[in-house]
């Protein structure tokens, strides 16, 4: 599937699932459990400007790319002693313009967040003792932009091709992620799995059977 520039897609099941979906997928990224968000991605927007691959809202946590060859930048909104704190974590690792297996993971026990490009660690951040991932109301994730188009700011649209997306409540190793991608090796920790083969004009089917469909933003 190609996410077109200016047309980000959304993962906000509680908004459109009428109580049918399971797993509270947005909450997965707020520190109560480990997580892995993994995607096989090929960047299409060529620019030296900042572009957003994905962004969790309303308490922003997102992965951007910048410069000509797509260097990575992880932005974290943290809660430090009750105060909001921003972290901007830059990487020399380049995503380029070929397919890469990009993974964003969190280990609760080790308090580590990391970004992997294929099996190479690109960014790693250890939360300090007084830092927590911030928690927001009805968390949701945008793909291909940093904000909803109607808001008109921090949009940073990015077009890319995507043929695999997985969201798990576990910290998965590269080999595990690879196996899930290749043989759709489902386990109970996986609450959203997408191979993009089954889709409509508005939804991408969640083959984990949790009804956490990716959907188009329409007005």
């Amino acid at each position, binding site marked *: 599937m190609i996410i077109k520039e200016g047309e980000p897609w959304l993962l906000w099941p509680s908004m459109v699932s009428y109580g049918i979906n399971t797993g509270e997928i947005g909450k997965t990224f707020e520190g109560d459990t480990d997580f892995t968000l993994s995607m096989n991605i090929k960047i299409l927007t060529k620019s030296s400007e900042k572009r957003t691959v994905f962004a969790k809202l309303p308490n922003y946590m997102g992965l951007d790319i910048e410069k000509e060859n797509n260097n990575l930048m992880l932005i974290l909104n943290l809660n430090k002693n009750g105060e909001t704190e921003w972290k901007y974590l830059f990487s020399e690792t380049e995503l380029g313009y070929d397919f890469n297996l990009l993974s964003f993971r969190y280990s609760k026990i080790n308090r580590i967040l990391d970004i992997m490009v294929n099996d190479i660690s690109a960014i790693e951040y250890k939360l300090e003792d007084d830092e927590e991932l911030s928690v927001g109301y009805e968390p949701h994730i945008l793909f291909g932009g940093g904000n909803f188009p109607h808001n008109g700011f921090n949009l940073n649209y990015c077009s890319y091709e995507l043929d695999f997306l997985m969201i798990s409540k576990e910290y998965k190793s590269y080999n595990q992620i690879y196996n899930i991608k290749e043989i759709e090796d489902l386990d109970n920790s996986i609450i959203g799995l997408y191979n993009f083969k089954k889709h409509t004009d508005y939804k991408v089917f969640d083959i984990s059977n949790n009804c956490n469909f990716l959907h188009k933003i*329409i007005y």
Partner: protein
Amino acid sequence: MQNNIFEETKKNLDSVGCGFCLAKWTQVTMHLQTGLNHSCHHPTAHKIPIAEIQRNPSALHNTKFKKYKRKEMLDGKRPEECDYCWNIEDNSDNYSDRIYKSSEPWSKPHLDEIIQSDWRADFNPRYVEVSFSNTCNFKCSYCGPEYSSQWLQEVKQLGGYPTTDSFNSYGKLIEKNRLPILQSEYNPFVEAFWKWWPELYSDLNTFRITGGEPLLSKDTWKVLDYILEHPNPNKELKLAINSNLGVTDELVDKLIEKLDRIISEDRIKEVIIFTSVDAYGEQAEYIRNGLDFNKFWDNVNKVLYKLPKVTITIMSTYNILSPFSYNKLIEKVWETKKEHQNLERYWQHPILLDTSYLRFPQHQSVKLLFDKQKELILDNAKTALYLGVPIFTNTHMGMTEVETEKIKRIYDWSLSKTDVNILKTNRKDFVKFVDEHDKRRGTNFLKTFPELEEFYKKIKYDN
């Protein structure tokens, strides 16, 4: 949850009496083949005395019986027959249909007029549902002789089904004085309707023709011709016609031709066609005996293609035989929505799937299924959800929130508690029903529903 419109209606109604409801005046359902009527559709239908309609054809709605109920309402009492609403009002914080129906555009503007009127006065209803005859070419499993001439013929010849309650027994029909007048016979209720109609027509907001199969009733065509020929047509009228869309090509074409003229000559506000199907393919044909599933969809497509403003609503009666192929039905509806999408439809979508659960006969209820099988209902809701769009417009076409939620609600309802002994009896009755169905109608239940083989055998052979 409070809503300003409904709160205002409630305040206005309660200022007259705690049982006051405008629908007792403004809405009526008339079953002319049996001479019954009710206002609204919740109370049990009561007989229309022939002597009353001979004097006053509007007694099809304004019966003495109903006028006394209106008096009770105006005197601050709650008519017992309206207990459907009293149950809701006394046991929850929800608004009852008394509030909803009295807030409708066909009710609310008449509030003062009704308050000021004498309880003995006649009132022309604005929302009328009428069934002219029971003539029908189908005999759906959950229907009966009052609404289907095919059913009447069968039970007259072979009697009721061997269930605990003798389902659709001919004797009971006579006992309850519910034997329908055939279309070929003189019907004083239909005669009274036509006397009243010229006066009724000009006041109508909504007119819905049900049956039987309305396209097999000469009176349906008479209504359409009346609208076509009227020098000053009621342009505010919302016309709804039920049809099984399983009649001959000639009749479907005739309907399209007349509706096309009515629409193009701007003689009406909107036309909606209501139809029914409760499953997919052969399984749907088993439930709705007489249905040719492919022909049905050919007719759906023909109507939507030739009448680009019309919306078809499928009133689906979700029953024990529905879950196994319902996903395919949902997909078919979704494809049809996309195929016939345009910017002209009266109700935005070309087709809507309105799923309600079957309550009666209880031996065909989805509640009878084993819990594991009920997961299929949730799966049906998931399919609708996947094919959904979050916004209900002409431009974004998919299953709507309401279409999806109504299926999900059936799943929730199916899991609610049922008395074990009643469940056991109903399951046994289900097996007796399908066995008799196969014998009488030459069908093959287990071949059509292999998914229910284990269920069937367990119920039939286990004690």
